[in-house]
């Protein structure tokens, strides 16, 4: 028994890569989750590091468009809610950075990749938030789009990522509801407030659709990610789901979506919608969006400004340790 196991074990070292990859793919196909210490193809690891860290960066950068509105919140209640929401985003960033760290990259390396502009994050956060109604539109549309993606990721093949997503999804529906609540209140208000509500929807609608990424035929990472069950639904599938959901909810607000081609398609049992401006999408991805520089700069300043705090905390911990040793 023992000898047999040992033989099998050493034999595995001599196996060809594709044989081991086959075993790996079998596990994936059988819905067995991959855990940090399991063997995985290098490309699987790299894909996950890229995707999870981008996701984490998005949560962290996502605090910026909302953080600026905390002190202008119209009531104390709204302010408390917004603070709680922004705090959640920080927490979500942390869950995700932790999940990425299990793949062998450390937190500070990821931070450096973000502030140097090497790492990407969701393009949506490169758009400015111009009015209080934007807090509503971000919660309802941006978080609404994120939730669809995140619900899918609760079943992703990498264990720590899936567990982080479950935690995040539990908290995320509060985000979408508080956003809808802001817009709903405005939609019941004065003409000026109604106009504010519609204006925010107009500006955030198309960027929200872009959040699902390029069209399936133009998406470079999709096929492999689907095979590895990192992703379980295609970009266009999720985007369609989102349009169907929002096109109904917008009626409750008594507002419209800024798309003349938006129309219910009885045959398809879903909405048809207009073509996304892909030039704008790629332009923002490449760093030329309205706020790209500002966002990176804010993160860089926070990261560098925090260096002395991180160092001081370490020095203090060391000092305390030495003291307790001496005593």
């Amino acid at each position, binding site marked *: 028994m023992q000898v047999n196991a040992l033989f099998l074990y050493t034999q595995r070292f001599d196996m060809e890569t594709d044989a081991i990859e086959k075993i790996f793919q079998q596990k994936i196909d059988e819905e067995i989750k991959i855990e940090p210490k*399991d*063997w995985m193809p290098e490309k699987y690891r790299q894909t996950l590091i890229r995707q999870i860290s981008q996701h984490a960066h998005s949560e962290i950068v996502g605090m910026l468009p909302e953080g600026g509105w905390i002190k202008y919140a119209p009531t104390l209640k709204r302010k408390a809610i917004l603070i709680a929401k922004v705090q959640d985003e920080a*927490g979500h960033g942390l869950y995700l950075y932790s999940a990425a760290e299990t793949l*062998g990259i*450390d937190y500070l390396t990821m931070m450096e990749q973000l502030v140097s502009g090497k790492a990407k994050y969701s393009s949506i956060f490169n758009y400015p938030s111009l009015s209080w109604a934007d807090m509503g539109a971000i919660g309802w549309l941006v978080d609404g789009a994120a939730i669809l993606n995140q619900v899918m990721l609760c079943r992703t093949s990498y264990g720590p990522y899936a567990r982080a997503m479950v935690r995040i999804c539990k908290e995320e529906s509060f985000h979408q509801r508080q956003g809808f609540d802001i817009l709903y209140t405005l939609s019941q208000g004065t003409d000026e407030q109604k106009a504010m509500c519609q204006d925010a929807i107009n500006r955030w609608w198309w960027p929200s659709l872009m959040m699902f990424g390029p069209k399936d035929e133009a998406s470079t990472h999709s096929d492999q990610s689907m095979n590895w069950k990192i992703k379980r639904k295609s970009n266009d599938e999720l985007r369609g789901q989102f349009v169907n959901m929002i096109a109904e909810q917008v009626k409750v607000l008594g507002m419209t979506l800024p798309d003349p081609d938006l129309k219910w398609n009885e045959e398809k049992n879903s909405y048809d919608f207009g073509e996304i401006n892909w030039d704008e999408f790629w332009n923002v991805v490449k760093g030329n969006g309205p706020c790209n520089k500002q966002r990176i700069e804010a993160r860089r300043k926070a990261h560098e400004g925090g260096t002395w705090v991180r160092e001081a905390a370490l020095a203090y911990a060391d000092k*305390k*340790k030495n003291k307790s040793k001496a005593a």
Partner: protein
Amino acid sequence: MIKLIRKFYYGDYDSTNPGASLNTNEKLSEETSWPLWEIFVRSKQGLDHKHVGSLHAADAAMAIENARDVYTRRNEGISIWVVQSKYIHATNAEDADSLYDPANDKTYRHPTFFDLPDAVKHM
């Protein structure tokens, strides 16, 4: 040869070499970072502490404070344990076959192994 064994954070340290630094292709940052802690939360009296995730902190007190802010914002817990990740020893996934197999071939350890006469109602 393919490298089958790799060291990772997250309570998955190789127990033959605990606390060793990571050895991966990623560039490690030059700044010394706060150590990593694993967080365990007891959700209510009478239940076990359960692993919920990890975070970086300079010392145990900070790890507990941050764990409270990060992992118990919505009544998830009433008690928190923190332990520095490098002190956790773990088995290797590659050993699983030999390590856990003996459990499978001793099915008599399970009560369902024994057929009872119908006359015996509850046992």
